[in-house]
């Protein structure tokens, strides 16, 4: 009557070759994009000439102090925004979740702006203070959004109220930003508008190094959640029965995305739609499994932001288009297209 366990257990993963192929392909593309970004700009310095010493002193300075940190920051911010987009879509089980759409980015933005106006000039007004403010802002919004999602349960009503909550938070943050701009001094106003447009211009080694470190931590936390995010797709009760501690997973993803997105916003302002666009396209190509989707989104986001930023630097040179503008121009129409397609499917 009692049969012995007849099935040998072994790990079923995606065929290794495919995962490796996709990830190494994306890495290669990223390296090529970095090479292109490193070589182009208002001041034409090739990375090659920097290393073999044929470039002028000034060029070397520009390359090391401005261009390189900027590229690295682009990689980190792109990876973080797209990675957190992928993770949030998994967490809400909804392809329309995204740090900008749900108001995470603008909430962080409001807190950072508040910080600039309140503490500018004092020691607390340093960039580290801005980091903390961004983190707090994103965390607050995340908790609010989560509360709403929890109250509504699953289903399409929840999606609607999530998007509406995001809209409300975005509007509120916009209004708050307006008020701050109104009461700010000229000096503060200059700093606010410099920061708020969504650019990678402010990349300095001092801040970039810390940002890279913290963002790596956040990315690692997200990558570690991949398998659990897969399980969560079964619905909470079923996932619980399959061995998932959903509370712990949610806590980890919320902290990681808030930390990462808050940092990104504090450093670069709001760069929109990256978190929506990249995971969504990749999911169409690679399927919904997070073990491949998360790292691929991170690489893809880094790739897209490096390319977009290089375009932003060179298209209108010597002037510069804010890269946030570029990604929003790209992402806005795509989002509308997504909505239209969803409506047709209903």
């Amino acid at each position, binding site marked *: *009557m*009692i*049969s*012995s*366990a007849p*099935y*040998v*257990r*072994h*790990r*079923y993963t995606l065929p290794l070759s495919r995962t490796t192929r996709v990830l190494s392909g994306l890495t290669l593309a990223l390296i090529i994009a970095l090479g292109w970004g490193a070589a182009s700009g208002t001041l034409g310095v090739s990375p090659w000439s920097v290393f073999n010493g044929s470039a002028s002193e000034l060029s070397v300075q520009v390359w090391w102090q401005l261009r390189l940190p900027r590229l690295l920051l682009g990689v980190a911010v792109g990876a973080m925004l797209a990675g957190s987009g992928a993770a949030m879509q998994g967490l809400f*089980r*909804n*392809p329309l979740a995204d740090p900008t759409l749900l108001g995470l980015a603008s909430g962080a933005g409001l807190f950072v702006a508040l910080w600039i106006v309140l503490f500018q000039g004092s020691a607390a007004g340093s960039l580290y203070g801005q980091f903390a403010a961004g983190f707090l802002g994103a965390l607050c919004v995340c908790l609010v959004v989560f509360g709403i999602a929890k109250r509504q349960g*699953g289903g399409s009503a929840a999606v609607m109220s999530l998007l509406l909550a995001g809209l409300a938070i975005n509007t509120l943050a916009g209004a708050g930003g307006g008020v701050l701009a109104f009461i700010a001094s000229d000096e503060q106003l200059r700093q606010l508008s410099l920061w708020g447009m969504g650019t990678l211009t402010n990349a300095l080694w001092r801040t970039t190094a810390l940002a890279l470190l913290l963002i790596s931590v956040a990315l690692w936390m997200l990558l570690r959640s991949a398998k659990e995010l*897969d*399980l969560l*797709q*079964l*619905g*909470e*009760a*079923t*996932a*619980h*029965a*399959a*061995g*998932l*501690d959903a509370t712990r997973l949610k806590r980890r993803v919320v902290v990681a995305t808030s930390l990462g997105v808050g940092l990104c916003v504090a450093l670069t302002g709001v760069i929109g739609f990256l978190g929506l666009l990249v995971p969504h396209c990749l*999911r169409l190509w690679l*399927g*919904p*499994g997070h073990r491949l989707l998360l790292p691929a989104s991170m690489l893809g986001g880094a790739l897209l932001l490096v390319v977009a930023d290089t375009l932003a630097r060179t298209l209108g040179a010597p002037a510069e288009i804010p890269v946030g503008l570029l990604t929003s121009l790209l992402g806005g129409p795509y989002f509308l297209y997504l909505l239209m397609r969803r409506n047709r499917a209903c």
Partner: protein
Amino acid sequence: MLTLHQAGFTTTPSIAPLDGTLRPGELLAIVGPNGAGKSTLLSMLSGFRPCEQGELHLDGKPLDEWPITTLANRRALVAQQELPGFDWQTFELVSLGSNPCSALVVELLHDLDLTHLAKRSVLSLSGGERQRVMIARGVCQLLSRRSSTAKDGGLLLLDEPTSALDIGQQQRLMRQLRAWAERHCMAIVCVLHDLNLASTYADQVWLLHQGRRIAQGNPAQVLTPRRIEEIYQVNINHIAREDLSPPQFLLAP
């Protein structure tokens, strides 16, 4: 395998305390009118909503003392239909929650008549097909995570597994559940609406009404015509067959 001592919920939706045991290889059907507390009871049995009074033991150990991942080796849940947010392939979805060898997945897909859908996106499947995919996933979790020392096949909890199936698939599924219960020595709990299915295939039936268990025992003891007419507020014609096979019910016109 599963024992209840006065287990229940005091907060709404409440379940009046109940006792009971379920042995490996047994199929328990939980029946009752809409809103009787069937799904609530199932979520108590799965440990998703821990019981607020009394005790619930699995393998002699209180359910809330099991680590969540170890518990997942011993019991699986197939909840009522919930649309997965993304377009998983059938094969991938069945493998979620465990690391099954592909032979097991292939076998389960075959058992549930899903082989031809293995590469399809689950969002493109019909309701009944998707329901069978989710059942295959639950069984797959139990069988592939089963430890080599386990004496039985674990506990499978199903919430209305036949709600979207045609009668042919209903029969095939219930026969398959019996076969799994026997072959793998698995204990199975099914929330069912179809009393005839419960009567035909279950070893034990629990009849719930307004959060209380009205009756328990084998189908012939529990599913008496008078009781059913009273609780469901329905007029039925009862077919009691002479060969002592389980009672069947027809709606009176």
